[in-house]
């Protein structure tokens, strides 16, 4: 008969005797694709009510608008993938860097749009009222997208809550900003860029506050 010597035997016994089979989590990439599929479904619904011809005309008119949309889309994809990767314990924090290049493209192309506002005569910059609507659109859409993302992340086990929540927030804000293009009748301008930056910062900040407490330890 063996004599128990470890002070941890009692805890180990409690954990083992209460063991229930668990369903293994799908890989981070699969979970990221599932969340992005939700974004695509919302995009399809919005496309039904949006003026797609106006959107096409606007995007064709200036390459930087295309680049900005491409940047925000890739930011959403890469930040979501990085957040799901970081929700698994053995993944490196360097995954966070994946979102940096598309984020730079997004900011750079949007900044270029501001320059064009001064160079091209007939651009229509956003009024304060329109800027406010943009902000509300991004924040409003971030609620369901964020709820779905953080619900999915909660099923995993996050060891770096701050970083993971910030990446999740970035993914949500970038997806919402991408979807905003369906209802964005004006070109990128300084006010517009500022609104986007404020919206993204707000969503990331709120995500950190809410999600850091919500992640199980």
């Amino acid at each position, binding site marked *: 008969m063996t004599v128990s010597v*470890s002070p941890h035997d009692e*805890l180990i016994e409690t954990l083992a005797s209460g*063991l*229930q089979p668990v369903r293994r989590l799908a890989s981070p990439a699969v979970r990221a694709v599932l969340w992005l599929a939700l974004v695509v479904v919302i995009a399809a619904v919005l496309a039904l009510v949006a003026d797609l011809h106006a959107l096409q005309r606007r995007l064709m008119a200036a390459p930087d608008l295309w680049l900005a949309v491409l940047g925000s889309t890739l930011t959403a994809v890469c930040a979501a993938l990085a957040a799901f990767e970081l929700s*698994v*314990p*053995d993944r490196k924090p360097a995954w966070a860097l994946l979102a940096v290049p598309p984020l730079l493209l997004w900011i750079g192309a949007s900044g270029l749009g501001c320059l064009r506002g001064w160079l091209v005569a007939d651009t229509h910059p956003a009024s304060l009222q329109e800027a406010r609507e943009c902000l509300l659109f991004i924040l409003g859409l971030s609620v369901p997208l964020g709820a779905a993302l953080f619900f999915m992340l909660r099923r995993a086990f996050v060891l770096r809550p701050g970083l993971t929540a910030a990446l999740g927030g970035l993914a949500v804000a970038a997806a919402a900003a991408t979807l905003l293009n369906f209802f964005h009748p004006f070109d990128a301008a300084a006010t517009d860029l500022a609104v986007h930056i404020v919206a993204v910062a707000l969503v990331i900040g709120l995500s950190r506050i809410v999600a850091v407490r919500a992640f199980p330890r």
Partner: protein
Amino acid sequence: MGDAEQSLSAADRRRGVLMAAAQAGDAAAYRTLLRECVGLIQAVARRNGVAAGRIDDVVQDTLLSVHRAMQTYDPRRSFTAWLSAIAQRRAIDALRSDNRHWRRELHAPLAYASYPDSAAPDRALEGAQAGGTLRVAIASLPAAQREAVERLMIEERSLAEAAAVTGRGEGALKVNLHRALKTLRAKLRRA
């Protein structure tokens, strides 16, 4: 060296198999695995500079985390790397919590300026009655340190009151109390 690496990776594979069985609900495999984890977690905690007296806390926290994170383990990947990542995080948590505790203790004398701690003298007297060691330790303090302990902790005076009674400055009282607590801690640890 090559053999050691090979056996390590074989051990890692075996642990991965045990965890996969645990995910399917095999309690015996889980028990074996968790027992094996204890040594690995202790090694990670030591490597991260956790004090010897806190290593068991890190082990317990990590075992609980392993239980909650079980569904995230992918049997195609290294179990040891997965476990080490969790253990390292819990070791860092322990270091941070020790650091916070230490800082609170360092600044505790400042609290007497406004809020004398009414519970501390009772507890101090209980301790003294039980073993007599605390009373002896206080009595053996240098006069200025003993005065700070008596006025601020035993008589429950605020820093301003104690300064008025002793004629010493508030800063000097704080320093004396801090030194006294440090001396007492060292004496009681030796006792």
